């Protein structure tokens, strides 16, 4: 091992990169520095997110005003918006691409790609990812994938239109609907590139967390963000390959005339070849074996970010650290064994249905543990209501209100009524869409100083939060009622059915709220790019946070720390510790007499529940220690 470079110490990775003059290309484009790759992921994610949001506004407009003409649609969509009317086929394409972009490109790559890359090496105390090269490759696969998806918007027949789950036979027969042609093929290519990117990233994240922690960074001292990213990477690593297999078979069905997913399709419908013997349900099983863990691939990083932000900004140790880890692990395991609850009405074996119901309902337990731990952490904290904390609290709110409807949908008997209605749309947009977006926003506001060395504008941040929060509830909450009344999702115009005419006003209300929400995001985008250029310079540790990334200097250097990597002497949540001089003690500060990082810091019993309110009554202390036993596994 070469020790010629000052900062090439105990971790093996190639550093040679940082030591010759960097060109523009090697610094900003084909960068191998995890911080730059994180920014690339984030900005690509924001661009894709804007695109996805714009699509949702277009189809919301159609749903609210199915009979009106909007001449600007012809301007931007060409023949898909002839005379200002949205083409029904293009409506299907829009919802498909909106779903794909939001689920995969924004909330998988944009969220976990950004923050795993930024935070894993910084928070575990590593110079860079285990393999910076594979990390770079991961981004460029993602970039190619985004390009292919964008290109698919312009092909003949339009982009893929089979819904983001691309069930066969719509996706398997190129002549089924206009969007089943080239657009569908490109969708599959894009997703396979995306899988390659996710796998390369995941392999790297896991290896870095397990192998490259700095001295003293025990697994039980890792910030919860890192736990969340680690488990997310494991989920991705185990579930994306199954989608790869499913996609491969689908490509064969589409392009080479096999019949894995096609049962009894006569030759004249299937491109001249009769298809017998397959089963479309097989595809759905394989897809949802990815699809359900995918929900947690989206959600867990957001929850990890929330844990960190809530603890830091309420100046309190996270409540029930070990219970948090335990519930992340439980959610991860459960997420792999419940995929069938997306398929209750497909005609799958009812016996399996009952297995899936049981598993699904059990997920409520670890989710509730997490929610209550967040609330308990906020309880009587010294809240610094920065935009980051507001977004984190917003996540908790969405997680509760969206999660509760999950209990409805997890029951096979109720799901028969609610399947594919707006109830489902409301459920997953709240619990997975809004919650994860809020986690992402929280992370951006919190770590923006780390990423760009500048502060974001708080006023715009507050405006962004309140507008987004209110409009998100206004958009998705009324959908529950529509769903309960049986309005199906993915329909071009609900007014074609008399019984749904009562919802005309509600649809208009939702669309107006959605437009307000869209405008709110412009505040964010302006704030984001403006702050990069003109923002106030930040100090090294603006939030007075404990975690290791804030011990690194503001100036970005390849290798993160100029000198030796700091050693870690304590867990990440020593906020407001009684007897300490400051209300935070960074992880790299040893306690008096603590010489070996592996030793535990001095055992001071900290009753964090009332560290800021010494007058807290005895009753509350008793209540809290009871709660602690319930959810906290009492860290003594």
């Amino acid at each position: 091992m070469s020790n010629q470079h000052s900062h090439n110490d105990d971790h093996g990775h190639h550093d040679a990169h940082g030591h010759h003059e960097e060109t523009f290309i090697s610094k900003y484009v084909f960068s191998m520095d995890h911080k730059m790759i994180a920014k690339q992921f984030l900005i690509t994610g924001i661009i894709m997110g804007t695109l996805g949001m714009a699509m949702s506004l277009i189809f919301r407009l159609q749903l609210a005003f199915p009979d009106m003409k909007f001449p600007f649609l012809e301007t931007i969509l060409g023949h898909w918006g002839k005379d200002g009317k949205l083409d029904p086929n293009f409506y299907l394409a829009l919802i498909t691409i909106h779903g794909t972009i939001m689920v995969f490109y924004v909330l998988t790559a944009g969220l976990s790609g950004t923050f795993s890359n930024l935070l894993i090496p910084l928070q575990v105390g590593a110079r860079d990812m285990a393999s910076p090269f594979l990390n770079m490759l991961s981004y460029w696969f993602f970039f190619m994938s985004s390009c292919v998806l964008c290109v698919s918007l312009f092909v003949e027949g339009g982009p893929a239109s089979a819904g983001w789950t691309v069930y066969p036979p719509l996706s398997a027969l190129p002549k089924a609907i206009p969007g089943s042609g080239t657009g569908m093929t490109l969708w599959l290519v894009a997703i396979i590139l995306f899988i390659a990117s996710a796998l390369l990233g995941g392999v790297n994240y896991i290896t870095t967390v397990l192998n490259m922690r700095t001295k003293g960074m025990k697994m039980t001292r890792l910030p919860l963000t890192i736990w969340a990213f680690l488990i997310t990477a494991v989920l991705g690593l185990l579930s994306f390959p199954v989608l790869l297999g499913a996609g491969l078979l689908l490509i064969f069905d589409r392009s080479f005339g096999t019949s894995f997913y096609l049962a009894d399709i006569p030759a004249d419908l299937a491109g001249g070849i009769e298809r017998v013997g397959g089963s479309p349900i097989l595809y759905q099983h394989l897809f949802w074996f990815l699809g359900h863990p995918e929900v947690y691939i989206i959600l867990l990083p957001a929850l990890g970010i929330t844990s960190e932000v809530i603890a830091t900004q309420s100046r309190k140790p996270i409540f029930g650290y070990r219970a948090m880890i335990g519930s992340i692990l439980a959610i991860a395991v459960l997420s792999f064994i419940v995929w069938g609850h997306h398929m209750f009405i497909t005609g799958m074996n009812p016996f399996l249905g009952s297995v899936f119901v049981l598993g699904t309902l059990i997920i409520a337990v670890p989710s509730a543990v997490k929610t209550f731990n967040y609330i308990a952490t906020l309880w009587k904290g010294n809240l610094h209501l920065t935009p980051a904390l507001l977004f984190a609290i917003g996540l908790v709110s969405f997680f509760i209100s969206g999660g509760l409807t999950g209990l409805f949908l997890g029951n096979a008997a109720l799901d028969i009524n609610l399947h594919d209605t707006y109830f489902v749309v409301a459920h997953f947009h709240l619990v997975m869409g809004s919650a994860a977006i809020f986690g992402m926003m929280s992370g951006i506001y919190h770590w923006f100083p780390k990423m760009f060395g500048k502060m974001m504008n708080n006023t715009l941040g507050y405006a962004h939060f309140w507008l987004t929060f209110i409009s998100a509830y206004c958009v998705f909450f009324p959908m529950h009622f529509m769903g309960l009344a049986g309005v199906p999702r993915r329909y071009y115009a609900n007014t074609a059915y008399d019984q749904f005419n009562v919802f005309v006003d509600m649809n208009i209300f939702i669309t107006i709220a959605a437009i307000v929400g869209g405008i709110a995001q412009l505040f964010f985008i302006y704030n984001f790019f403006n702050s990069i250029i003109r923002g106030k310079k930040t100090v090294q540790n603006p939030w007075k946070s404990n975690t290791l990334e804030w011990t690194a200097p503001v100036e970005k250097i390849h290798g993160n720390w100029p000198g030796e990597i700091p050693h870690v002497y304590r867990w990440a949540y020593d906020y407001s510790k009684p007897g300490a001089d400051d209300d935070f003690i960074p992880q790299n500060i040893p306690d008096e007499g603590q010489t070996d990082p592996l030793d535990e810091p001095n055992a001071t019993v900290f009753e964090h529940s009332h560290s800021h309110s010494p007058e807290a009554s005895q009753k509350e202390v008793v209540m809290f220690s009871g709660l602690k036993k319930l959810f906290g596994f009492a860290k003594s």
Partner: protein
Amino acid sequence: MEHTEHLEHTEPPKDMKAQIWKTFWILLGFTIVDIGLYFILPSNMGKNILFIFLGVVKAYFIVGVFMHMKFERKWLPYLIVTPMVLVIYLITLMIIEGGYTSFVR
């Protein structure tokens, strides 16, 4: 790229070569047993389960000796082998589901 960290390799046994060849003969033996059983036993579920069991035994030898898993620290096998439970779950469910498909067809 390839500078190893100060890794105290859990050294493989001294007679590694002998172990390798032993494993080879075991694998060969199991394959021959497989083929023998294929012709001897009648086709039924029990035979299939036996074949899968023999496959897992062979996998144990390949992973354990050839891939060095037997000589690694115990956490690595846990990390790699535990997720296979999910595959078993998936396969079991899908075989039940496949049977149901034939039932409803």
